[in-house]
């Protein structure tokens, strides 16, 4: 296989230090007109989504800062996947605005800048790991040199020529993650990427997430495992389509006086339920 590194629009964006410098420069030059690049990675305003006649997201507004690992936590059925689908532009939304990296979600220009991993691994079982990656690399205009790198990043170096259907569930989901890493997208939207992985691998992946964030990548990672919350820079707690908390883990624990995120989550919900109960009285 030849390396088509002549076309690398994805990796061209990942020069974080340089991009930050550039941003500072342009802000100095024109302090009034804020460049689009300075906007938060995700800006959601009054997002309403209904699926099958049932409201999944009633009216959601929040932002996700750039270059951080933001955790999207909450019980399953709370709207995490629907929200992530809206961010990558495959969810039909009823109303509201979703902007990603300064552009409306789902804009063609975003498709090579945002990597998305669905909850169940979406790769081809009847192809090898390398064949899957070569296929997606061609679609994403990512250089083939990325393939070896991402296989290493998800710790599958010895499995490049294995058929995906012969791998374990955890390995399959890592192949799916590797596809999203191709071309070094500026933003990663990961739906429960650590489900079914052993503790060592989970730790390694979270370390990798932070390494990517340090290099300027924005990550939105969903999980229903509360102990993963402390590994995030920022937390969004989603329950029944409503954002019940939007804080850093430390602030959330301080505010609720809870010992861990799970108790904090319960405290926040109890407080809301009490408030609601008081309203009619």
């Amino acid at each position, binding site marked *: 296989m030849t390396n088509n590194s002549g076309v690398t629009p994805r990796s061209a964006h990942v020069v974080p230090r340089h991009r930050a410098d550039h941003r500072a420069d342009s802000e100095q030059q024109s302090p009034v007109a804020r460049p689009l690049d300075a906007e938060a990675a995700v800006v959601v305003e009054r997002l309403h989504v209904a699926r099958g006649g049932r409201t999944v997201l009633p009216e959601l507004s929040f932002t996700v800062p750039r270059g951080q690992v933001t955790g999207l936590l909450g019980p399953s059925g709370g709207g995490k996947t629907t929200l992530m689908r809206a961010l990558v*532009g*495959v969810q039909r939304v009823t109303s509201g605005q979703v902007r990603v990296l300064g552009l409306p979600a789902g804009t063609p220009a975003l498709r090579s800048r*945002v990597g998305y991993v669905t909850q169940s691994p979406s790769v081809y079982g009847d192809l090898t790991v390398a064949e899957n990656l070569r296929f997606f690399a*061609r*679609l*994403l205009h990512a250089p083939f040199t990325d393939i070896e790198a991402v296989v290493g990043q998800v710790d599958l170096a010895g499995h490049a020529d294995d058929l995906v259907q012969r791998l374990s569930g955890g390995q399959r989901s890592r192949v799916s993650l590797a596809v999203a890493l191709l071309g070094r997208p500026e933003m990663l939207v990961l739906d429960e990427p650590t489900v079914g992985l052993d503790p060592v691998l989970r730790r390694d992946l979270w370390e990798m997430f932070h390494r990517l964030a340090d290099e300027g990548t924005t990550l939105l990672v969903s999980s229903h495992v509360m102990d993963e919350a402390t590994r995030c820079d920022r937390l969004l707690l989603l329950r029944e389509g409503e954002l019940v908390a939007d804080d850093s883990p430390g602030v959330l624990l301080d505010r609720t006086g809870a010992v861990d995120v799970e108790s904090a989550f319960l405290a926040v919900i109890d407080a809301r339920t009490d408030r609601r109960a008081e309203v009619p009285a």
Partner: protein
Amino acid sequence: MRAPMAPAATLAVTTRVLNQLRRDHRTMAMLIVIPCVLLTLLWWMFDGDDQTFNRFGPPLLAMFPFIIMFLVTSVTTLRERSSGTLERLLTTPMGKADLLAGYALAFGAVAVLQAVVAVVLTVGLLGMDVRGPIWVLAVVAVLDAILGSALGLLVSAFAATEFQAVQFMPAFVLPQVLLCGLFVPRESLPDVLSVVSDVLPLSYAVDAMREVQTESSWTSGLSVDVGVIAGSGLVALALASATLRRRTA
């Protein structure tokens, strides 16, 4: 703005689908062997009655690749949908037309193999009489198979489950089989059905086969038939591309 299609993406899809088929030995064998077995069965049924075999051979040579490719394609694309890979593909820069054209090219390549083997068998071994050039018979068979793939791609967009996808075969294909002139010559059909038969693409596939059988050169009638088959395939692909939605509920 981005072009709706990019040859590199189309070829990436084609290569991938062919890679998958290459691994699936059983499916590949069935794609090639089943039409041959059915045509041999037909020849055997009319044991020694060359006239009847010559009458039924050409329409069935048009029909088998059409039906088989319709089924294979509708199931394959449904698998893409249910495995979640379709959703992922739609979040990449790939155009929707690239996906469908990529599939059509891959199945077209399989169709060439299938058609050449079936034509060599029926004309070479089973002795079906053909006045026209043999290669035209193969070209028409390939076009029929591609048309079957294109229709399969189109209807799979409307199927939510494997059960529904398989049901589209009796719904979309069998009426065409009944009205294509195999059982009753198209001229002898009741007026309404004759009109319906005129708008169904398989009718032109069967007409084209008969044309090659009876005429020694490429006729204008054959041009019309081939044009209609190819045109219907392109229309089906365009419709399939238009009905594929990036955003779903």
